[in-house]
């Protein structure tokens, strides 16, 4: 009876792991694309800082009226473009997070529905090829939490950037890189390896 009622839960688990596997690649690609954009943001901030330190009227450039305003406008325009692209990337990250979250929460819903029929011994039973349901659900929750946290941290970093706060913008690339958490990423890959026999067996 218990084995029978485990089938929908197993199917939902397989689907969730496949979803994580596919989205993990997308997530990585999007983050790789963000790197150069963050670097250009840092460069633009450096240019802003340099411009504000220099008095163009005391340099040979004084022959050009409004040069500072024109350059400042162009710098703002370039910053806008970069920020626009970063926000596009952010929404790709959001869709990765959303699809993983929805798969994981559907696993938990199914488990809740079946909680009456599923005995604790069934949930913790494991074999050489199939980890226990309890373990798999915990791994799913870990992965879900990782993507949620990563997304919120990266989003809040972008939201704190202001076009007039150059020091924030200048340090943004370093702060962005410091959000990387290779250990958790590695644990997710590890987890996908552990469930590979399970996901392949239909």
């Amino acid at each position, binding site marked *: 009876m218990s084995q029978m009622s485990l089938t929908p839960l197993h199917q939902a688990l397989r689907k969730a792991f496949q979803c994580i596997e596919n989205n993990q690649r997308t997530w990585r690609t999007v983050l790789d694309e963000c790197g150069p954009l963050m670097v250009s943001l840092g460069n633009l901030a*450096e*240019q802003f*800082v*340099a*411009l504000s*330190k*220099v008095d*163009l009227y005391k*340099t*040979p*450039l004084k*022959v*050009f009226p409004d*040069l500072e305003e*024109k*350059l400042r*406008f*162009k*710098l703002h*325009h*370039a910053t806008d473009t970069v920020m626009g692209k970063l926000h596009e990337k952010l929404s790709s990250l959001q869709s990765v997070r959303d699809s993983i979250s929805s798969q994981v929460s559907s696993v938990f819903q199914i488990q809740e529905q079946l909680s009456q029929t599923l005995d604790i011994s069934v949930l913790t039973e494991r074999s050489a090829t199939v980890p226990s349901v309890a373990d798999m659900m915990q791994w799913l929750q870990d992965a879900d939490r990782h993507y949620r946290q990563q997304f919120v941290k990266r989003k809040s970093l972008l939201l704190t950037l202001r076009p007039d706060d150059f020091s924030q913008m200048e340090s943004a690339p370093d702060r962005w890189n410091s959000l990387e958490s290779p250990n958790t990423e590695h644990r997710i890959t590890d987890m996908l390896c552990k469930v590979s026999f399970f996901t392949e067996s239909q």
Partner: protein
Amino acid sequence: MFLLFCAFFSGSNRKSTALTGSARKIKDNAADFHNIILRWDKLNNEGLNIATKISNKRTQSRPNPDLLVVGESVLFQSLPAGGAEELQDECCKLQDIVKKMSGLVLKMERLLESHSGLSDLDQFRTQGLTPPLFQTWTTADFGESWFSPDLLSELDLKTLILQDLAHCESPDMIMVYLSLWIHEPHIPVQTRLGLEGLLLETGHRDL
């Protein structure tokens, strides 16, 4: 009346490749204009690489702050062996780039002259009642797309950067020069859109 008919005839020919009169000339000018801008952008990128090398050499050769008291000669002493020649080489390359850019500005001015001639001619022929040449623009509308004065002031700015970059000592100023080189502040953002509009209108780009 005959002239008016001719003007209409060239307007109605807009789908055919055998354009005549003003439309032919404007379409060719638009292609030339586009090529000039492509060439300008390429030169600008090449120039940026050279200017970055020059600025790197300048910042590397900056005197150690501890040695500042020794005087101005420290700057030259601290240049690595052969540094001055390399700097000179790079400056010559940048000079070539600016020279080529000034050639492009000349070409652009010729295009502008040719266009104002066309405009006058059309005005004379049709007494201001010119029909659209391609889709919706009249000869006079095309005049707004050329941006020769912007390129000319941009060229002046680049010439000034060329003259001062290798002599500049402040790293901030060097950064501002590079920034000015990349962002071309005299060329307004909308001119790129104007160029795209011109290419769409003349049929060089498909709708």
